[in-house]
């Protein structure tokens, strides 16, 4: 039994923690949240220079060819720092889409830029409020152009290209397209979200140039496998964020006095923090399972991914809301940092399918496993 990260992976974690502590304090998150810059371009550049964007990209495409365990470590640390950069869009989604479905030519065209961080990708799935399915898609493509509206698209306003999910009259009813976003047929508008420390856009595609990614009519099945992999990496970001919320709450509770003693001496607070710890710990252990499944491409990935995702959504929501609560009135102020995990937890929870969606996927995956 070896269910832990290796020594090298732990060293990577230490390095990442040190780097993010000096380059991505909460002040950086606040600057992006409050200001006009859609993301911290300087941080992005440094992250790319360290090779984080290149982690799992094979060496033949100028990547590092490392495993998803290394990427899990990075994801947890970026989540802990609530880093305001397009890492999830570009690395967990766009890179994965091209790795999974790209032709040799497409891989050569896109992966080196993604690895270097000079090209940012995003993933355009949803078209309105409510659950997206292959049947609900209205974005439509012909052989070389695509038309439709995608909202919200994480990092759609800053990305160089998007992986767009469109309807298809073949196969599973959907197809993927690569759409370069710097062209006449594309207009993009930044939109306001509950977490302005991560930028989002509305993409309007009007006969925009597009190239098919993977086979026509297999798009929905690509989406499922891309989301399964992304779910594990999102979950690692979420458990990293959980720790941040717990530490904030703990530190405040130890220092805040009410009724003549620190509020950390009241069981209402102690048990709240213990519950946060319990949920975080369950979620983290499920993330280990997810990391194992994604790194070995295990048959259990759909179950492992959904398990990690469900428990990470639940843990982060709980940790972030009870962190605000522990801070009393101060937690409700703009000035305090409690708002960041509270915002981020819900953003990550809705970005690639909600808790209910993944609960359903989990049971579906278990049903499939039992039927087999």
């Amino acid at each position, binding site marked *: *039994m*070896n*269910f*832990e*990260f*290796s020594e090298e992976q732990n060293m990577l974690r230490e390095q990442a923690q040190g780097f993010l502590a000096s380059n991505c304090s909460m002040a950086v998150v606040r600057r992006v949240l409050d200001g006009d810059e859609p993301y911290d371009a300087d941080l992005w550049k440094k992250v790319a220079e360290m090779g984080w964007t290149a982690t799992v990209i094979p060496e033949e495409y100028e990547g590092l060819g490392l495993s998803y*365990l290394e990427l899990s470590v990075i994801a947890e640390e970026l989540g802990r720092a609530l880093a305001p950069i397009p890492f999830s869009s570009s690395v967990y989604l766009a890179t994965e889409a091209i790795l999974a479905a790209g032709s040799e030519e497409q891989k050569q065209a896109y992966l080196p830029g993604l690895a270097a961080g000079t090209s940012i990708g995003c993933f355009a799935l949803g078209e309105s409020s409510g659950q997206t399915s292959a049947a609900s898609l209205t974005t439509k493509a012909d052989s070389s152009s695509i038309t439709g509206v995608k909202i919200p698209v994480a990092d759609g306003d800053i990305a160089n290209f998007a992986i767009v999910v469109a309807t298809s009259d073949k196969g599973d009813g959907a197809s993927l397209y690569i759409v370069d976003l710097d062209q006449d047929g594309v207009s993009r508008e930044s939109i306001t979200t509950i977490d302005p420390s991560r930028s989002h856009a509305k993409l309007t595609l009007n006969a925009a140039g597009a190239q098919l990614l993977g086979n026509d009519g297999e798009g929905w099945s690509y989406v499922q496998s891309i989301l399964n992999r992304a779910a594990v990496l999102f979950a690692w970001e979420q458990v990293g964020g959980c720790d941040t919320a*717990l530490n904030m709450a*703990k530190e405040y*509770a*130890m220092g805040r006095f009410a009724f003549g*003693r*620190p509020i*950390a*001496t009241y*069981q209402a*607070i*102690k*048990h709240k*923090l*213990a*519950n946060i*710890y*319990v949920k975080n*710990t*369950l*979620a*983290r*252990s*499920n993330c*280990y*399972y997810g*990391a*194992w499944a994604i*790194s*070995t491409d295990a048959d259990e990935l759909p179950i492992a991914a*959904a*398990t990690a995702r*469900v*428990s990470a959504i*639940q843990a982060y929501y709980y940790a972030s809301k009870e962190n605000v609560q522990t801070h009393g009135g101060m937690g409700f102020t703009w000035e305090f940092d409690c708002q960041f995990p509270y915002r981020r937890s819900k953003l990550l929870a809705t970005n690639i399918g909600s*808790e*209910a969606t*993944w*609960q*359903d996927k*989990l*049971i579906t995956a*278990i*049903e499939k496993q039992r039927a087999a």
Partner: protein
Amino acid sequence: MDFNDTAVEATFREEVRTWLSANIPTSDELKGLDYIGRAKLWQKRKYDAGWACIRWPKEHGGRDASAIDQVIWNQEESNFDTPDSVFGIGHGMCAPTMMAWATDEQNKNYIPKLASGEDVWCQLFSEPAGGSDLAALRTRAEKDGDDWIINGQKIWTSGAHYSDYGVLVLRTDPTAPKHQGLTYFFIDMKSAGIEVKPIRQISGGANFNEVYFTDVRVSDAQRLGAVGQGWQVALTTLMNERASIGGGGGGVNFDSVFDLATRVNIDDAPAIKDKNVRAQLATWYAQESGLKFNGYRSMTALSRGEIPGPENSIGKLVGAPKQQDMASFALDLLESGGAIWDPELSDAAGMFQATYMASPGLRIAGGTDEIMANIIAERVLGLPQDIRVDKGIPFNEVPTSNS
């Protein structure tokens, strides 16, 4: 990261599995025995073959096995249908305390008979006035020559009615602050003056007892630790209470509720098609999975010869309420049939009803939910201890329910 055993572990697992497959008691062998007889038969068989309490030293009837070997044994044994154990407290709590505090001579006399299943031990800790606040116990011991004389009452003692020995904490100095006036002993349950009265539980069973002590004599030689050091010795027992990793839990779990949801209908379709049912089940699956992989993380630490981290401390706090909630949910799925508790008429022979009625005890026994949450807050997160109004006060001046 991989789930595979090391080569040495794999060999050991194979050896365990082979022995278990060949030696599980058959229904013919168990026929006519009550649950104590069955448990003893199985324990003796393991002992004779060198598979009892494998982590203990050989000289005490064990096998000198490593912690990871113990986990492998637990996992493998839980895959077989074996008689329920009556040795959990004796093996898991009393023996480790003896081995830490008793003399070599005593350990030679008592521990092998625990390993072989000849003797059953119980834990006489809780009292009417000392449950969560165990150190508030009042049963007295007064020195008389080379003996102590015990008077008072214990309560909730599981298995006292079939136990041969027990460990107990007694108040030897009521004028000292509460933790300092305690002393720890082990005792023969057949000693004159001990009276065991079963207490009926809400589940209908009567597995725990009141134990009355009237002028019971115990030799000073059966004291563990110094006079007044009883709390420290008790901590050895309590630390061992939930240290076990790798065994399978019985009763209601994800699988049993999932299967139930395929047998009963909601709106004329199998309940498993209902979105609320799926959502609930998914949450429990994720909890169960989290506990399982916590265990794997602890195993990894053991496998590397390290001490497991605090992640294992959450098992009971998550597991006990989860069992209760899942049983409650299962009864709801059964609709009006959920009320039927009859081995012939109930779904699954009444397993869901039985868990519904037994699970409240799981949230209390071995530390209540509230006490477990406090332990996590204080020992894992490092939050301050509760403020105690009885600190430093002589025990006989502390306010009680009756004052």
